[in-house]
Every structure is written in C-alpha cells, then in structure tokens.
C-alpha cells in the first residue's frame, strides 16, 4: 500500500489569520483516513486546499509522487479527486440517477450526441449499477431526490463521488445530519468505497465513529498536523488529548 496523495508544509493565510501553518497530510492507497481537529484547527481549509477549492499560499501537493496544482474543483476532478460536500450539492427536483451525472451528462453516440441528446438509458443503468454495487437502499430512480431520506440522499452524493473518483474522495461530515441507523449504513458504505480501491478522507467530529470506520487518523491543531494514529491502537482519550493539546504525542516526523 503506497502513498497515494501527500500535502507538505501547506500554508494558507486569510489576511492576518494563518489558517494553515505548514500542515502536512498523507493518504495511502485504498485506506480510510479520518481528519480530526477542534473547531478552527484548519480542517476545512486543509480539505479546501486539497480538493481545489482554495490554493495554498505555500507548500506542495503530490499525487502518486508527482507535484500537482489545482486552480479549481474541476482541476481536482481531472486528477480523480472528488468531494462530498456537507450540503451534498444535490438537485432536489431531479432523480438520483440524474444527480449523479450533473455536469457530466452522457450523450448518445453519433449525430444525436452531436446535437446534444442525452443518453438517459445508459446513465440510468450505470447509476443503478453503482447504487446496487455499493449496497445502498436507493431503489426508486424515478422519485426526486427531495423525496428520499437523509441517509439515501447521502448515499446518492457518496455514490456520485465514487463513480467519478479514480483515486480520492473527500467527505465533509457525512453523518452529521443523520440518525443512528442511517449513520450505520453510511459508515458501511464508506468501508465499501475503500474496498473498491478508492481512498477516503473523512472529516468528522464523532470520535467513536472515526475509530470504527477509519484505518488511520490524522490530527490537526492550530493549522498543523500534530499526531497520526493507527485506528486499531488508539482510543477516544488519546484523540481528544491530541486535538486539544492536552496530550503530547509522538509518532510524528
């Protein structure tokens, strides 16, 4: 399992505020990494820098060892990096299949495609296939997304990201708005995503959830990475200690 993606010494300033003060981040192939930190630790800024929403002022991003720059989320997508936003960015009036193809609609082959005619059948079939293979309970492809449950909406957004990601999916608080049972399903879904070989970066506040689903955990405090753990041999106290600075941790280069 080699290193897939790496951020080195990222610095991002907003005016006088330094949101990231030389933050590092490492992601291996096919793993789930949780990125945790207290409010204002720079989690969102770090993810924005790594998903093309913002450009870091200093530092570099390496994808499979090659330095890359991303000026926009579209650039990130070209590198196979997808993001599941906290607000999901779904079109509520459209169906689940239609939502997975926003901005990337398939056109029919030949003349019809040149005229801009959609290949609805293929899109529907492929979306249905993704929903099934990911084991989601999204079954009614005709219902608008607004009629789905919170967990199903989340599933649609995650499946969309996985369908298009060739390497990395960032997920911003994917279970924040969900009930217990739906949270279970989404966590299962995240594991399945990793099994397909796509690496997942999970931002979360929920420590038990993090310990359950992640392979590794990276802790951010005051704009810097302060600790890295294997989920198997860490506990909630350790994580909270690292987040708040109550605990000084080793294992960091």
């Amino acid at each position: 399992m080699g290193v897939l993606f790496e951020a080195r010494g990222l610095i991002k300033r907003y005016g006088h505020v330094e949101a990231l003060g030389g933050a590092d981040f490492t992601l291996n192939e096919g793993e789930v990494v949780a990125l945790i930190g207290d409010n204002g630790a720079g989690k969102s800024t770090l993810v924005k820098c790594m998903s093309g929403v913002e450009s870091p002022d200093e530092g570099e991003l390496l994808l499979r060892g090659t330095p890359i720059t991303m000026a926009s989320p579209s650039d990130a997508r070209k590198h196979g990096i997808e993001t599941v936003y906290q607000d999901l960015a779904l079109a509520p009036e459209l169906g689940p299949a239609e939502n997975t193809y926003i901005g990337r609609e398939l056109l029919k082959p030949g003349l019809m495609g040149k005229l801009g005619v959609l290949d609805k059948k293929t899109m529907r079939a492929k979306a249905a296939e993704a929903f099934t293979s990911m084991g989601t309970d999204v079954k009614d492809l005709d219902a608008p997304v607004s009629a789905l449950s919170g967990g199903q909406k989340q599933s649609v957004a995650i499946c969309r990201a996985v369908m298009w990601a060739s390497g990395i999916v960032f997920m911003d608080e994917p279970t924040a708005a969900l009930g217990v049972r739906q949270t279970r399903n989404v966590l299962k879904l995240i594991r399945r995503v990793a099994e397909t070989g796509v690496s997942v970066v999970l931002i979360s506040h929920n420590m038990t959830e993090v310990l359950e689903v992640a392979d590794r955990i990276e802790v951010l405090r005051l704009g810097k990475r302060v600790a890295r753990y294997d989920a198997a041999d860490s506990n909630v106290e350790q994580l909270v200690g690292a987040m708040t600075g109550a605990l000084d941790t080793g294992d960091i280069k």
Partner: protein
Amino acid sequence: MTATVTPARRVRSKLFGATAFYLLGVIVAMAIVFSIIRPDAFPTFANSRNILTDVSILLVIAVGTTYVMVAAGFDLSVGSVLVFAGVMGAKVMAATGGEGWTTVVIGLVVALISGVVWGVFNGVCITVFKVPALITTLGSMGAALGIARLITNGNDIRTVPLSMIKFSVAEFLGLPWIVWIAAVVAVVGGVVLHVTRFGRRTYVIGSNDEAARRGGVNVNAHLIKLYALSGLCAGFAGFLSLVRFSTTTITGHSTDALQVITGVVLGGTSLFGGIGTVAGTVVGMFVSAVLNNGLIVIDVEPFWQEVAIGFILIVAVYIDQRRRRRRSRA
C-alpha cells in the same frame, strides 16, 4: 417508494406534471359550459380556429419563458421586447423596400436579433452584475417599449410587404400558418428541454445552482443563453404578430408577460425552478385562451378576462407554494 410506477404513468407525469393534467379537465369543463350557453357559436370549427390563432403568438413567448422559469429565472420584458422586435423588423423592411420574400426574411432576421440583444442584456445584468431578474426585466420592459415608441414617435407602422400580407391569410390544412409555426416552436422547445444536455442543465440550475456549479457547469453562461432564448422567442413572436396584424400593435402587449407567466405557472412550472414542461405550458396557455374566447362568445365584457387571469395567477402560485412547502417538510 416502491416500484409500482408504471411506465405509462411515468410518461404522463414527465409530460405534464400532475397539475397540468387536471388542467386539461378544467379546459374541457370550460368548453362544455361555453358550448351549452352558445351551442351555435362556441363549439364550431371557425371558433376553434380563432382560439388556436389567438394562442399561437403568446405560446411562442411562453416556450422561452418556460426555459427561463425552469432555471428559476424570471422575464417580465417579453411583451415589450415583442413590440421592439416588431418595430425594428417593420422599420427595416420599410427601409429595404420591395414587396417580396427577401424583404420579409430580412425583417425576420432583424426581429430575431433585436430580441436576442435584449435577452443577452437581461442575462448579463442578472448574472454578471447580480441585479435581480425581477428588477432587470422590469427595467428592460419599460426601456424596450420606450425605445420602440421613440423610433416610431408612438405611431404604429402599418406598411408591411405584400407577400407578408398574403402569407398571413394563407392556410395549411385549414389553419393559418402562424398556428403551425407556433406548434413547431412548442414541439422543438419541448423536445430540446426534455432530451438534451442543454435542457437537463436548465433543470439542474433551477433546482440547485450550486450543485450545477460544483458539477462544473458554467451557470452564468447558461443563464445568459436562456435569457437570450427568451428574447429570441419574444422577437419571433413580434414578427409573427406583424404577420398576423400587418401592423406593430405598440400598445397591445402590456399584459403579455402577465398572461404568459400565468400560463406557464398554471402548466406546472415552479416559480422556484427545477420543475416544468413545455407540454404543461401549452395546456396552461390554453386555459386563458379558451376563457378569453368563451367570455367574448357569451357576450361577457372582455375585461372580465383580465380580472380572471390576474386571480388565476395568484391561485396558481399559491398552489405551487403549498406543493413546495409540503415537499420540504417531507
């Protein structure tokens, strides 16, 4: 939440949306009532032809308005753009001279360009300068009509090429050509909205413009195209109006936008975007057309139609709001 949705129902709901389907019933009911009151005058072929001819020009505008409203936009300027385009077309045709088809085609092109220019102006103000659509198009509604009046000193232009006058009375299968042209515009507009990527993105933007943006859609460019399309339709309608009346009818279009928006909303297009079909719009437009015609046939003061349309718009929006609230609660 089960797979009990039959293909037939899916097609039907895709085509009309539930609201417009019941609206068909309303139209039939109105037709029956008017037919009972005036069996000699309402249910005749000549009268049906009148209704179709009346609805044609507004329907062409309504197709463009449907696109704009599906994308959660708004265009009040269509009536004035219609007049402006008609005036420009008539002026250029008069300046070109001649009674032949070349002159007519030049007039048509000028009318279409005039419409598109206003549409692009609206679109740029709304997307680039972030002026709300309501205000932008209210402003261009006033400005377009004002310029049309400046050009003509407020007097209608009544000189149109002879071939255009001949065309206005020519028929195909018993109906004026204007009716067929409007039908083609509606069919093409409906198909493009339903099956193309352009149409799909129109729905996405209306439903959640941020989702479109994050999906890599250039939302501003798309919206400008939609307002340009609305202007194009209004410009084309201006030319058709010129064909039908052989004059520019400067003062006759102050309520066009109201009538069109009423028809579009009645037809199931949501004011909040993301929902709507051209087929629904066609049905919606026929509600006011049948009502208008029927009231005239049974000798009710035609002003009542304006009263009715105004209230119908309010009721239609009320229904739309309630549907939306119910959904967001779910």
